[in-house]
């Protein structure tokens, strides 16, 4: 007998805290007619604790989070935040010994699956050129989810690569708590990245798959006076390419 799939979408506190990112993901899910249990809008996965070195406190904290997640009886979870994703996928089992009884997917994997199964329809806008920014969290510091987001984007727009991409992609500066510790340094890194990677390509749109990258790159873009650069999180960008 097949167990019925019950999907949970873990928004994560950073996406939930940024209205445009939250709306982007919700719009995507509703346009794709996905049935899901919303979670993590008010619940942090615990990554700030592990990044801050609060290991013992994190161990205690993530147990409570895991209990809450397990009680929902979901069979599959999707999150658009690489931090949440890597916490559930790697840190919970490997660092804290908690096996979650459901499959964890990052949004890029989920969108790639939906596309393959023909469950989402994206407008063909091959005249639009976007540069894809690889978040470190699902890239070199994670399982290397480089092709999934590109496949999805290429199905609707033209993807432009930075000279250094995928495993050698340049970080936006938004991770590792840097946006909390030295926000101006984090934003300076984003600005530099845009100047080095994006402007020479003549592209004015960046798409990425991480709320931290999206926010940090947008802050960096705002510091470039002579050109307007738009930055989108993948769910947000895809939602705009979908028929209502």
């Amino acid at each position, binding site marked *: 007998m097949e167990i019925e799939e019950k999907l949970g979408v873990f928004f994560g506190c950073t996406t939930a805290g940024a209205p445009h990112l939250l709306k982007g993901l919700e719009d995507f899910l509703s346009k794709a007619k996905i049935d899901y249990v919303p979670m993590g809008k008010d619940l942090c996965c615990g990554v*700030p604790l592990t990044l*801050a070195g609060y290991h013992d406190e994190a161990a205690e904290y993530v147990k409570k989070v895991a209990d809450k997640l397990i009680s929902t009886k979901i069979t599959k979870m999707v999150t658009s935040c690489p931090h949440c994703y890597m916490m559930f996928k790697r840190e919970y089992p490997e660092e804290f010994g908690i096996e979650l009884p459901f499959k964890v997917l990052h949004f890029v994997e989920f969108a790639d699956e939906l596309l393959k199964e023909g469950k989402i329809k994206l407008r063909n806008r091959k005249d639009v050129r976007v540069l894809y920014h690889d978040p470190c969290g699902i890239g070199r*510091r994670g399982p290397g989810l480089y092709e999934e987001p590109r496949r999805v984007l290429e199905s609707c727009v033209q993807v432009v690569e930075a000279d250094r991409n995928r495993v050698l992609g340049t970080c936006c500066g938004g991770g*590792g708590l840097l946006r909390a510790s030295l926000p101006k340094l984090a934003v300076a890194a984003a600005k530099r990245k845009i100047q080095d990677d994006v402007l020479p390509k003549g592209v004015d749109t960046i798409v990425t798959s991480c709320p931290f990258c999206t926010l940090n790159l947008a802050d960096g873009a705002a510091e470039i006076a002579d050109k307007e650069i738009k930055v989108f999180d993948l769910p947000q960008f895809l939602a705009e390419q979908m028929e209502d």
Partner: protein
Amino acid sequence: MEASKEFNAYKRTIYKVLKDKFLKTALERAVTAFRKNRDAALAAFPEVVEKRERLQEIKDKVIDNLDYYVGKAREALEKNHAHTYFASDADKANEILKNIIGTGKMIVKAKSITSEELEFNKVMTAYGNTVYETDLGEFIVQLLGDKPMHILAPAVHVPRERVAKIFSEVAGREMPADPKKLAMFAREFLRDKYFKADVGFSGANFITADTGTMFLVENEGNIRFVTNAPEIHVAVIGVEKLMPTLSDAMLGLEVLMRYSGYLTTSYVSMISCPAKTGDIEKVTVYGAHGPKELHVIFLDNGRTKAAADPVYRDMLRCLRCGACMYECPIYPLVSGNWGYHYMGGIGVAWTALVSGGFAKAAPLAYSCALCGRCKEICPAGIDSSKLIERLRKDLKKEGLVPSFIKEMAETVIKEGTPYKKKEG
């Protein structure tokens, strides 16, 4: 409280540096040039990528047996009429140096980041000696009373106009902001110092355990003078620089050169003992043309302790090629201001474990975006992000967490989110 004060002072420095247009220009030039050179060197010698894996294995073997290799190298050196010493920390090394060098002496010095651990210039000057940095970058930094901002290019942060200004003061005449003319001035100024100096001081890039041969890699030619012209050559070498054999060191040399962005460097000096001759009736006389005495001090200063730790031990593989710094999204924005004696991401671990201590490392530990690109390019495969994540755990245990981190963590624990909840 103390941790937060330190952090705030550091934050002020970093924010000030971000506004420095000179630094920005200098660093942009340096990063672009370095990456181009490094890519060209790797493309010309693609087998080096495979060689680096072998190097990592060799390095690991040494890190697991530091005492053994120090003993073997000392034995080889002593047999060759060199004097050897073991210094457990920087203070001990300075005591040994004072005994060897004495006071009222002139010292010419090769670039050595290990000497920064000892604060060599400060200590030796206070002891009544005169120290001349001879590496052009270090010479500039010394004249400016500044600190080195990159391990290969210490004056990476100083634009030519500022070099011209300080050289003009030393020369007593107007110097143009022309790199060629400025380099020639340093050449003339330092030329006679090598021969007047009592002591030549250096570090080493590698030292072999089987023959006690130190490898010194350079382009300027100053190290050849420093280690050859004065009667006494003193070297301070971190124990992690040991390589089991000569051929291991050759492998290391090749990897180091390529990842530093060189097809080859101008010079590599290999020094195993004082200069000697047996040309008159096979009677060995020391100090033929080179130094009469060679003193080699092996410096521990926290390295053995780091070697015993399953995470931190990887930092000892570092060859100091500097590749990671040019790959980092953060370092090129702030240079060595993100650092103490050692800088950048790898420098945070070196500060904590070797030179500075946890308190000095604490403010630096939260400047890394943990992106991990340094690991991809590091010839030694060091994952600095992992070292920093580990250090953050230790800083928590030591009570050295800055207040903003503490507040954020407490908010997560209490509210289930790092972001403070809005009322209503």
